[in-house]
């Protein structure tokens, strides 16, 4: 019964794993930047300037967006673009980007949508099941400026990014073109001498090892206690002479003597002395060359 439950659980886990993995993969994809009015900015492969959408894989594994949808009107098929399958370029590498051109034609290739971005002010990224919205953004059409992209921007280190106008259009690249000071240097500014780091880190090291110490102190105690109880129980049995079916002292002594005698008879080292002598053998077929040589054909003379 128990085994059956375990097997069923394993089967369920195996069945669920791909679904979980897929969900995790698409969850890492986000709409990172869009440009609605492209006048003098990024050109598509045909040399045209149209609006574009940049997707970003925020995870650390490849994610294939093939089969999922981009839409500017959720539920409206004419304004929804299904990303074609069987194009390896739809696999977004970890921390990578892919750009879709919204030219409204949709027949120029994998990365050309059947809608333009200047219609609804909404953009959705929908999972391959056609129902789950993976990410969506809203933008004010009237506020859109020429060649001014909007996207997720980190305005200060340690602050969550906001969806806003970007300082520069960065299709296929990170949005934050302004360099921030590294985490380490920010830490140094607050702790120039390193005291805070030392105290914090040593506290953590001590805490980790104190926790281990406390746990294993208890584990050790319970082990010693159990061993003592066991010893006490066997001592009590020995003292009472017999307890139920347990053998008495004389029997134990007899068994012990028998075992000792038996072990004495067992000996790994034999009393025989093994001597290895060099054998002076003048001839051995193994070293004879005659056996490894091709025999000369026998010459038969005609008479």
């Amino acid at each position, binding site marked *: 019964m128990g085994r059956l439950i375990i097997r069923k659980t394993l089967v369920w886990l195996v069945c669920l794993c791909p679904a979980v993995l897929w969900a995790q993969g698409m969850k890492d994809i986000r709409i990172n930047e869009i440009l609605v009015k492209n006048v003098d900015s990024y050109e598509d492969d045909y040399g045209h300037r149209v609006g574009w959408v940049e997707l970003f894989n925020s995870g650390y594994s490849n994610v294939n967006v093939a089969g999922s949808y981009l839409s500017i009107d959720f539920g409206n098929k004419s304004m929804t673009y299904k990303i074609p399958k069987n194009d390896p370029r739809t696999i977004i590498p970890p921390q990578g980007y892919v750009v879709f051109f919204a030219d409204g034609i949709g027949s120029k290739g994998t990365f050309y949508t059947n809608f333009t971005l200047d219609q609804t002010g909404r953009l959705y990224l929908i999972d391959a099941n056609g129902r789950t919205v993976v990410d969506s953004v809203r933008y004010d059409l009237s506020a859109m400026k020429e060649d001014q992209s909007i996207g997720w921007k980190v305005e200060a280190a340690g602050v969550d990014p906001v969806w806003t106008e970007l300082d520069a259009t960065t299709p296929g690249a990170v949005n934050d073109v302004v360099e921030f000071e*590294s*985490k*380490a*240097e920010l*830490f*140094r500014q607050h702790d*120039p*001498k*390193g*005291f805070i*780091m*030392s105290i*914090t*880190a*040593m506290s*953590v*090291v*001590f*805490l*980790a*090892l*104190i*926790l*281990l*110490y406390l*746990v*294993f*102190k208890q*584990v*050790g105690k319970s*082990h*010693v206690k159990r061993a003592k109880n066991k010893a006490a129980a066997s001592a009590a049995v020995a003292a009472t002479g017999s307890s139920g079916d347990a053998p008495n002292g004389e029997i134990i002594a007899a068994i012990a003597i028998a075992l000792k005698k038996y072990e004495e008879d067992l000996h790994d080292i034999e009393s025989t002395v093994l001597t290895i002598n060099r054998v002076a053998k003048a001839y051995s077929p193994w070293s004879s060359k005659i056996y490894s040589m091709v025999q000369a054909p026998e010459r038969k003379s005609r008479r």
Partner: protein
Amino acid sequence: METGFFSFLGGNLAEFIGFTGFANVTWGHLIMIVVGLFFIALAIVKRFEPMLLIPIGFGILVGNIPFFPGLQIGIYEDGSVLNYLYFGVLKGLYPPLIFLGIGAMTDFSALISNPKLMLIGAAAQFGIFGAYMIALALGFSASEAGAIGIIGGADGPTAIFLSSKLAPDLMGAIAVSAYSYMALVPVIQPPIMRLLTTPKERLIRMRPPRVVSQTEKVLFPIIGLLLTCFLVPSGLPLLGMLFFGNLLKESGVTKRLANTASGPMIDIVTILIGLTVGASTQATTFLTVKSVGIFMLGAISFVIATAAGVLFVKILNLFLKEGNKINPLIGNAGVSAVPDSARVSQEIGLRYDRTNYLLMHAMGPNVAGVIGSAVAAGVLLGFLG
């Protein structure tokens, strides 16, 4: 015709000579070759950490053969064979594999039987943060200071792992410094141990460790992983592999895997890590003022770590009953140079009492030091990475 032939031959010869090491040699290369030879001599003649110093020493020779750049030969040239091997160092791949092997060959019984010895392993990590503060004062950046400080953990793989994340350009100097001082543990530690202990303290006899059950041995890596990694997830690559290796050993049902991890696998990775770390010390990138500073700070961190371990035992003894006291000569073993620092405790202990064997007691803080330095590396990575 003949003149053309000879000028062609002469031109080719001149070109060939231009490609030889003799034409490209600099004083820096020669100095580094001498350093490499010194390491090899130290390993063969003095038997100081030969498993590490031979690959590193020879790697220094390999890395400092002068060559004409652009031929995809050097370790820093994209596409070269050495560059591919160096990938494992650069991306922190080799250290966790070494930790897997260490876990599979380490017996934590000494620590489990007397868990308070774990605290010595924690105290010795003061060396890391002492060096970190000095490095900051000397003008190193916070990331560089963190990477340099880890030398005080006396753990080569941890030093490589952390420096590859925090200061990749200093990794060669940090790794060579860490391994050099680990090899010099028998030279650095004894004077500090003698200086900080009284003759009476050196004679303290410790209780023999109790027998540890199989259950406790199996529980240790599981509980150890959960406790330490929940606290410091950034130490997961090292601690995860360390405890995994130990479970392979102690579970008793994966003997083949444990044997592979603690035998052929760790040997292969040691060869690769030693050779490539050695080769990464190309004179052009290694012989800098920063490297000198790193070596100096490395020595200081070892001194602080040893002193902190010994002094911590002395403080701990103030709170322990007679009969439960710890010999401060095992305090030095809190640095995780396994098993050299424990061996130093044993040798110094025997010098003052021919019958006082401290090795097994010293192995407790020694292996706790491995855990402690990995936790410290995780904390540094968490704050500075």
